[in-house]
């Protein structure tokens, strides 16, 4: 990139914003794919890549994708939890397939409606 003008500053900022935002831990939606050993075996890795592709396609900057350990429900693997800022409780989605992911991202992440048929439950385990 040669000599830049003042306007270019904003462009660069925009391009790198997503990367920096993440680094600061700022994000509206948090998608946590459960990848215990069994989760991975059940295809959690595929789910994670699918989720990332969807996010990238829609050029969303405020969605944090993380993974975590096994959620305990081996039968319902692969599972992921979506927490949205301001919503009362995180929603757990189960028996996921790459196709379901697109629908969940559209409905829940973008429009804020929980996709009932895929959801297992609201809230999360209580920890002492």
């Amino acid at each position, binding site marked *: 990139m040669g000599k830049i003008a*003042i306007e270019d500053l904003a462009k660069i900022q925009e391009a790198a914003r997503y990367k*920096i935002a993440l*680094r600061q831990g700022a994000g509206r939606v948090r998608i946590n794919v459960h990848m215990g050993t069994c989760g991975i075996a059940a295809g959690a890795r595929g789910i994670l890549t699918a989720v990332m592709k969807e996010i990238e396609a829609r050029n969303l900057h405020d969605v944090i994708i*993380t993974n*975590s350990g096994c959620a305990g429900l081996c039968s319902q693997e692969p599972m992921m939890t979506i927490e949205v800022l301001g919503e009362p409780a995180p929603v757990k989605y189960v028996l996921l397939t790459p196709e379901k992911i697109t629908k969940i991202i559209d409905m829940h992440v973008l429009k804020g409606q929980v996709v009932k048929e895929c959801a297992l439950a609201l809230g999360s385990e209580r920890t002492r």
Partner: protein
Amino acid sequence: MAYRTYLMVCAGTGCVANQSMKIKDKLESEIRKRGLQDEVSVVTTGCNGFCAVGPLMVVQPDGIFYQLLKETDIPFLVEEHFVKGRLVKELLYTPPREKAPIPKMSDIPFFADQTLIVLRNRGLINPENIDEYIARGGYQALAKVLTLMTPDQVIQEIKASGLRGRGGGGFPTGIKWETCKNVPSDTHYVICNADEGDPGAFMDRSTIESDPHAVIEGMLIGAYAIGSREGYVYIRNEYPIALERLQVAIKQAREYGLLGQKIFNKDFDFEIRIVRGAGAFVCGESTALMASIEGRPGEPRAKYVHTVERGLWDKPTCLNNVETWANVPQIIEKGAGWFSSIGTGDVTSDAWGGSKGTKVFSLAGKVNNTGLIEVPMGITLRKIIFDIGGGIKDGKKFKAVQTGGPSGGFIPESLLDLPVDYEELTKVGSMMGSGGMVVADENNCMVDMAKYFLAFTQAESCGKCVPCREGTKRMLDILEKITVGKGTEEDLVLLEELSNMVVESSLCALGGSAPNPVLTTLKYFREEYEAHVKDKHCPGHSCRELIQYIIDPELCLGKGHGCHVCAKNCPDGAIVGETKQVHTIDVMKCGKCGICYDVCKFDAIHIE
């Protein structure tokens, strides 16, 4: 491609020295092994400040803080955290005297209590990538200045902010810029003093390593305000990583047209040249620094004509410290009001009336969390040492803290609640100085500490003027006598007299401040001097001639059953006794090397 996780590996000099680069490579190879290279990106950042626990890494966006990493931990860490998403407890930070680790970086007290202005980008951006600096709002201040503000407005803003020199003098930056601008001349120079000669001070190094562009943008704004077209960064040759990052930053800035001709297509040209310091502490002083840039030997000259009027090559020159320049972009972007809201005092009427903004300190010595901290002015010493610093190491008792590097003074426990700002520190005989902060505990001998710092300034004296050249040497000789037990009462009087003479009549600040450690230790720890002189006894147990190693019979026999380990290791063969019997140290032969003290597992050996 959008990553989901960023591993911010600290690449400050401290961590790099602890092989953080090897850890980065290991991380990358492990991630590639598991095919996560498209999801997890490894980024090297500047120094995070918490050098005590380096090499360290912060996992974003989770904000998890891993510390004291070793190459061997990496495979397990990648497997656990990035594949399985579980934290690795052993690698988390556990504050001293506590059990539970604190995973989140923001919760760790060391970081929590700090207010980052100069170091806001540390650990968040890759210093060698200008786009990341711009992404964090970089060069917006410059754009604002070049489009909306006239040079005078910029100066008024800085004056209003109450920013004062972070090099140690604390001269109001706004006034300095204004005087320099008003001196009629065809050329004005702008210099960034990155010499940082103080031993134990590494604030400037970290600032440049973490966020070089902040310094560059600061200089650009300053140059625009003063009307200078040429800038110099005088950086120590002993900072290779900082030098290299600065060169990369300047190259990238020049590629983006932020340096050179017609910046932002405005009628403003500015060029920065790097001059490498040859390792003389005296070259930190402004006139000596300028002499060094001009190719002459680094010797200061009388500053009766200020360097803002006649500095480099006799042209008006504005010299500021790295930290001062790094503050400027934030002040312009967030406004003088925001900046003056932090810190103490009131600068509206008197520019010297307050200490505004934050100060970066390099916390070192006998404190648990040694590292680089940026705290708001007015914070108390106690909060720095005990909250941020994590208290005294090994639970020892606090004795004193030395601020301002070798030119600063020692502050005793009684003044721990002293708010840290220019006036307060000077009042008690010390000074803000560059920001070096060395904590001493009960085992430190004040006389020895004073001698250490005086020895440094004496060795670094350029030798030009009589008081500093001869005076410091005579003071050192006297301290030498005292630490070997030959000191007399008159020596103390003489020491004080010489110190005052050197402070009063030395040509430059080096001589003017070299006696501070001696004067403050004499003032606050007179009793230790008396002990050395009268009782020939060193309270801090560190003056070799005055200490004595003694074996405690109960412990030696009771616990150690005469294990004879100390005798075996004693180089002078001064320890008498067979196994299973009590051992004693022959005072005459004992060379006071302290090896027996170290090897004795049962703490049977004490120092009197």
